């Protein structure tokens, strides 16, 4: 199949950037979206042009590195799918496809489709952990956890930190990302001791990084490649409210 691509090209962080049109002939429907871009890039290099820079690594949907907005949708049209697992069989011959980076104030563009997501790491630094020194742990089976709680914690912990939730949100809010980590840890007994401090610090760090607020659009859930539920945002709000009231009383 033959495709027309409109791709965001931006030389570096200070460049203004623009959309550039490329033709992609001879695309095999079994290719992944990133393999299609590989083919386009190989041709650009052969012509002496600079290839399109984009982030990717595991190419199996788990590292969270790939981050393309395709036709206005983070990770493209398929639900529950990262770009690296999106295959060209979901497009038609002759399609025009626009490819942009995540757009959010807290995720500045570094080059072309590559963005900086260090803000997520800083949010985790503020409290997204259980403070256990190596060696201090008790026997693993000394702590019983109901299967339902462990399963629910795992649902939240499945977050790959890609940032599609932020890119999809009209407010560029990181609520789903923060909610997933807060919920994962507060659903487990190990996370109880620090749970109030954790939620207050993570939310305050999120605000400082320049992410917006949640106004219940639920675009985040729709874009999440791991289909993490917005119910966790409700969980986060409950945790936050409780901790906030307690800290002020």
């Amino acid at each position, binding site marked *: 199949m033959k495709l027309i691509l409109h791709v965001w090209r931006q030389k*570096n962080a200070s460049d203004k950037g623009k959309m550039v049109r490329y033709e992609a002939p001879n695309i*095999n429907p079994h*290719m*992944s979206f*990133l*393999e299609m871009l*590989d083919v386009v890039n*190989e041709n650009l*290099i*052969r012509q*002496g*042009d*600079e*290839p399109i*820079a984009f*982030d990717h*690594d*595991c*190419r*199996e*949907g*788990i*590292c*969270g*590195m790939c981050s393309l907005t395709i036709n206005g949708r983070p990770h493209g049209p398929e639900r*529950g799918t990262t770009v690296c*697992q999106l*295959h060209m069989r979901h497009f038609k011959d002759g399609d025009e496809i626009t490819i942009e980076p995540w757009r959010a104030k807290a995720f500045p563009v570094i*080059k072309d489709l*590559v963005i900086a*997501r*260090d803000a997520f*790491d800083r949010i*985790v*630094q*503020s409290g*997204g*952990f*259980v*403070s256990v020194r*190596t*060696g201090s*742990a*008790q*026997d*693993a*089976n000394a702590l019983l956890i*109901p*299967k339902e709680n*462990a*399963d629910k914690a*795992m649902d939240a*912990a*499945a977050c*790959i*930190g890609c940032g599609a939730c932020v890119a999809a949100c009209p407010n560029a809010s990181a609520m789903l990302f923060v909610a997933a980590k807060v919920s*994962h840890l507060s659903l*487990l007994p*190990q*996370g109880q001791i620090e749970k109030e401090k954790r939620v207050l610090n993570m939310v305050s760090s999120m605000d400082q990084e320049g992410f917006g607020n949640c106004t219940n659009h639920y675009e985040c859930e729709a874009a999440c490649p791991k289909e993490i539920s917005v119910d966790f945002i409700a969980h986060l709000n409950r945790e936050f409210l409780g901790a906030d009231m307690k800290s002020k009383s």
Partner: protein
Amino acid sequence: MKLDSRIPEGPLAQKWDKRRFEAKLVNPSNKRKYKVLVVGTGLAGASAAATLAEQGYQVETFCYQDSPRRAHSIAAQGGINAAKNYPNDGDSIQRLFYDTVKGGDFRAREANVYRLAQVSKNIIDQCVAQGVPFAREYAGYLDNRSFGGAQVSRTFYARGQTGQQLLLGAYQALERQIGLGTVKMHTRTEMLDVVLHEGVARGITVRNMITGKISSYAGDAVVLATGGYGNVFYLSTNAKGCNATAIWRAYKKGAGFANPCYTQIHPTCIPVSGDYQSKLTLMSESLRNDGRVWTSKIKKDGRSPEAIPENDRDYFLERKYPSFGNLAPRDISSRAAKEACDEGRGAGESGLGVYLDFAEAIGRLGEKSIREKYGNLFHMYEKITGENPYKTPMRIYPAVHYTMGGLWVDYDLMSTIPGMFVLGEANFSDHGANRLGASALMQGLADGYFVLPTTISDYLARVKPGAVDTEHPEFKKSEIQTAEMTRKLLAVNGKRTVDDFHRELGKIMWDDCGMARSEASLLSALKKIPELRAEFWSNVKVTGSSEELNQSLEKAGRVADFLEFGELLVLDALERKESCGGHFRVEHQTADGEAKRNDDDFCHVAVWEFKGTNQKPVRHEEPLVYDNIHLATRSYK
């Protein structure tokens, strides 16, 4: 090159205790004077960095990704082994130790493997305390499942995302230390050289992948946890960025490289679909708990799998290895699949595939139960192939997955360069010639949480902190040499892309040094690789400049190293005139086609010493001494 494994004297079960007692300690108030540089932030690197920082050392860490959470440990699916014996099915430290040595075809170091089995229990405790959401039974206890090469259920798991959850545990411990200011993290930074002063590792030279700036960092010890070299085959289950540059450049500075020919081909991967293929995707070995592997008994059978009646199906693993059946170890299962395909009995259009069938398990346990256990894996399979594995069997084929070889280390995980330690897949020590499933996560975390933090103090206690800084001429020399290589790559301005060379190298490696290796194929590879390397340096095309984010330049440096390293891998395969584990030499097999070891001549670690560019490296041997187990012919029949 002196190879002193420094294995403590005394009975096997007491060696680690003895080492811990004999190790010199660094006084708590002196720890902050020492700086440790940790390169790579996967399971081994992140767990080591976090633990060293908790102990009070200054730590600086480096990774090429945008965050430590991206390391490829994250993609491990199936689980992590530990000798907890919670199911009460006869497991013990001794049994995990024995299974691992046997699984490695008696080519691993006894003392290291025993220690691994000992600390395996602490790893599970530590991870649970961090909040890793392992699978549980309804009563709240941890659940276990079985894995290849074992007859007990000792594998802990978190759905099909065990690596992800363990890595996030280590990542969160690391981020906590970064937040406390005890670790300084450098993301999007690639290590390009190790700096030595008077033969001792004193620092590293790196390239900032955003600005292109080349600079050096000094430390009192350097820890490499940079993963394996599977991408020398181009197509593998590794992430695209995985590379051998750090360990290869350390080798060129004097670190011995052990057993590079030990590469693991994983039996259950999604088959190649075309020339554009950029990587291969693994389907977790855990699937073989419930999936049955088969192919048609008839050559060039064009029927769809549903149309092939039971009588025409060959469940070849169950037939050949009745006691382990579909859970035979990876090397054995891969070779059996290859044999069936070589006989013309392969499945799918390419004929390079066999079936992994869940119909029987779905009938016995119900679709819901299978979905709970493997849902995400089935989902992933369907995404990639467009086929529904609940309805039709999966097609699988072996692919390069893990590399057991790596930089040589002693019992303390120190390489032949004093002050440089090597952890995880980057070292060679625990898996012998074949790694068992669910053992990579165990080894990475054992090295990072428990082994290195103990052994490194013994080294640091003997050196003066901060003895050399980056103003030293050795650092300047390293920076200039590194910049010069970058300049050379950009200056070639030829006609072929980096990926083009990488694909060709991968094809040579797979065809001539893959699942079956012969003297003729290896000699042919030894001729082709230097020719390809010469062409690379005269005809590669790298666009852009060095002072910016330049992904083709990054790749070019890595492929340049693979083009050198591949030759060493082949050379090692040629010199090891026996078959063992993942290394199968067609000249050395039993009458029924199984690997035939030669313990008289090859019961040793082969360690290669760099002797200069275009000079033949020297092969050294570390004898493997088995005091506690009897060297047996591995049988899973």
